[in-house]
């Protein structure tokens, strides 16, 4: 399974802080994003950053592995 986390304004728009998505071999971050974007379009309107296993991710074609943790995040507003 892929663990998907949401925080702050994205979590509010999704209506959840965590989802589990079934893992398939060859699955890439962009595939996961497209699937979730179709389900939660309003949330993904504000998604600007993606983290994979706790690190900023720039390449959306990165392959996922089973038990990956993915976070779709809006602009940060800490400080």
């Amino acid at each position, binding site marked *: 399974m892929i663990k998907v986390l949401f*925080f702050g304004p994205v979590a509010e728009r999704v209506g959840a802080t965590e989802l589990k998505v079934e893992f398939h071999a060859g699955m890439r971050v962009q595939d996961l994003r497209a699937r979730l974007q179709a389900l939660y379009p309003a949330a993904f309107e504000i998604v600007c950053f993606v983290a994979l296993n706790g690190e900023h991710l720039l390449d959306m074609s990165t392959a996922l592995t089973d038990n990956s943790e993915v976070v779709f995040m809006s602009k*940060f507003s*800490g400080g």
Partner: protein
Amino acid sequence: MADNEIKAAVRIQHEDFSQDEEIRALQASSKRMGGIGTFLGCARDFSEGRDVSEISFDAYGSMALSEMSKLRTDAIAKFGLLDARIVHRIGTVKGGENIVFIAAGAEHRVAALEACRWMIDELKQRVPIWKKEITPQGDAWVTPHP
């Protein structure tokens, strides 16, 4: 934790922090320190034309802590600091209360001041923390300021 035990240099916590305690811990790391630059971020009780009663913070805790640690290491290398500390609160913070404290210690003032400014600017760009203003008119997630 014993009163005289020095806390970690990078922390995310619900409770308030003591600027004096953080500065003492920074000074304890080196006697070569000739300048300390600090930044204290506070919760405003008025924003975008509205009264704000409190601010609520959400964070991707593990990544936020890891990014803050990297930020400290990067600042030490980039500005030749002797030491640096970053503390950020999460949870609910009332108007006027402390949110974030950054301290940079260097041999001379220029590096300390520039590093401090750089760290708060970078923190806002790199660290996954979000704030929501609680107002009498309702709650609103804050859009980042440049």
